[in-house]
């Protein structure tokens, strides 16, 4: 029994640590998907490059938490915007398939840049937020988990406020609901798309702050994390910030439970098997997504 409690506590702890990161990635995914119906395969590379930039920053100067968050926001915003300008921004009228391939190409190119600038060795991004480990009775969250969770929950809350309450947020939602009608009302879809990429960049940058101290940053981590974000967004159903975030947390918990009860080797196989299942279900469940 004691052992069962220990397993459960550990599952929650390590599940939420990575689950928060998946949640942040999923938020980025669904922002872009909702505004432009595009699956951005380079989402993981946004996280990678922002994380590596933050790493270089910590090597160069003393970084306090506020400065780190500001730097992450600026870097993520810039990187997201740069990614938009080089993918969707260039191919606004192209077929969705071509746009998709552009994001795949962007993913590989950005990974190449990461190798050229930072090399292939894993780099450890230090913990930038002074959030301590939490423990209450048998319940326990390590410092990494607590920091990831705080960042992810705050980001989700801010994002949902932004989308609900601000003019720009409403513009993104309008474009997402019906691009043509939004345009007739004077909303520029281009701006909404660019903004959604930039915001996705910011969530990815926060994700890098969450994942960097846990697993280190390495050139090849982007695709895997990006795909996990995609699985999480599919789990959450793309339509509400909180559901999408919950998708990430649930994916993290499922993975942690599987790894703890069976073996670490099953983790990737089962997460992607889950994706196949979800995609098959989604096909029948939401038969035809409305055309923009």
């Amino acid at each position: 029994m004691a052992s069962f409690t220990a397993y459960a506590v550990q599952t929650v702890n390590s599940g939420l640590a990575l689950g928060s990161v998946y949640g942040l990635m999923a938020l980025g995914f669904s922002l872009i998907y909702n505004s432009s119906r595009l699956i951005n395969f380079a989402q993981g590379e946004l996280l990678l490059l922002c994380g590596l930039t933050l790493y270089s920053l910590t090597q160069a100067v003393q970084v306090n938490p506020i400065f780190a968050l500001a730097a992450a926001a600026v870097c993520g915003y810039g990187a997201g915007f740069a990614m938009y300008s080089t993918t969707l921004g260039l191919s606004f009228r192209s077929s969705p398939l071509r746009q998709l391939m552009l994001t795949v190409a962007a993913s590989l190119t950005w990974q190449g840049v990461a190798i050229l600038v930072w090399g292939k060795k894993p780099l450890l991004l230090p913990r930038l937020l002074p959030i301590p480990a939490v423990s209450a009775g048998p319940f326990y969250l390590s410092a990494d988990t607590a920091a990831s969770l705080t960042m992810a929950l705050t980001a989700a809350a801010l994002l949902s406020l932004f989308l609900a309450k601000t003019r720009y947020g409403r513009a993104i939602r309008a474009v997402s609901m019906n691009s043509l009608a939004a345009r007739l009302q004077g909303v520029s879809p281009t701006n909404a798309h660019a903004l959604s990429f930039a915001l996705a960049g910011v969530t990815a940058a926060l994700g890098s702050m969450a994942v960097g101290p846990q697993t280190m940053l390495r050139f090849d981590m982007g695709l895997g994390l990006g795909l996990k974000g995609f699985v999480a967004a599919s789990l959450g159903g793309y339509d509400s910030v909180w559901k999408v975030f919950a998708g990430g947390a649930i994916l993290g918990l499922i993975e942690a439970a599987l790894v703890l009860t069976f073996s670490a080797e099953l983790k990737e196989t089962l997460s992607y098997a889950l994706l196949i299942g979800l995609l098959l279900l989604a096909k029948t469940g939401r038969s035809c997504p409305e055309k923009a």
Partner: protein
Amino acid sequence: MKLLPALTLAALLCLLASAFAAQTAGEPILIGGLFAESGPAAFIGTPTRLVAEMTIADINAKGGVSGRPLKLISYDTESDPNIAQRMARQLIEADKVLAIVGPSTTGEGLAVKKYTEENHIPAIMTVGGDPVIAGGKFGPFAWTFKTPQRTSTAVEKIYAYLAAQKITKIAVLTAKDAFGQDGLEQLKALAPASGVTIAAEESLDPSGTDFSAQMFKLLEAKPQAVVVWTIGPAGAVAAKNFAELPGAKPLLVQCHGQPSPKYLELAGAAAEGTLMPGTKLMAAGQLPDSDPQKPVVLRFIAMYDERGLEKQFPLNTHSGYAFDALTLLRAGLEKAGKPDRDALRGALESLTGVVGVSGVFNLTPEDHNGLSVDSLVMLKVEHGRFTLAQ
């Protein structure tokens, strides 16, 4: 434009001349080098070549071997066993080297060995794994030598330390690659004789980034120590995951491939208090004056600094292996009295008391490594530095 054919002719004549002159006094003795300078093992292979070049320059500055300088011809094996074997062939057939130093990884060593054993070429390898000189299913090893300690020597060192701490129940986390498998086999094989029981085993992917789950399961078995057997960043990841689990912790012991500044950097605070066997390079300043290796180690470190290698590749437990390979080669050549492969092989396997950076080598026809448990020290990380563990 008439210069080119003339030059080619001159070059050809020179080559011809050197082929004839190779056996006369004063001409360099050619030594082949195989180093993984690119690919996953580049972090070991590149500094190994630099140390080999440094050692050869040092030997030549002291008059070479019997009045003849050594000359190193080296190739990059790209951490690939097939390329390593092809380069070994090239060294022997095209470059006509006398003997080979390297390669860098166990897999490459096994591939190169197939060729060198068949063609009777002495090869002094700097590979970590034992299979190259294990015999049995890995084939004969009459012409193959290696300078890093055997896996079993490192396991014995760990078990001796644990016995002194009255620790009998351990859990092990080993890499899934050849190096980790070798470690697991030796950990299991030597456990009964050392009075150690292995309460739990888990494995890790050396390129993985999170082993919390494995570590958690190991700790559930309530061991008194956890032994991690992997090289590269995975060891630091394991230490971090270990440190982050809640509750009281047992000892964490890493393998003899971990001691390097990179481990301290990646594991950070989680490295504090972790233990590992290492060569005496890692705690040179703390060695007692009675240690015969002390002057050799200190001199090596001075040379290493002088050539500016410390900045590029901070000194780690692997740094001295190429120095030792060439030290053995020189001792073998001097003992053989002539640059002849048969004589060199015979001399190498009867060398005794050769003091190197990694230990005092006493080779026999059965033991082509020649290092004992005494060549290793137990290191403990304290205040972000490696210190001798008490």
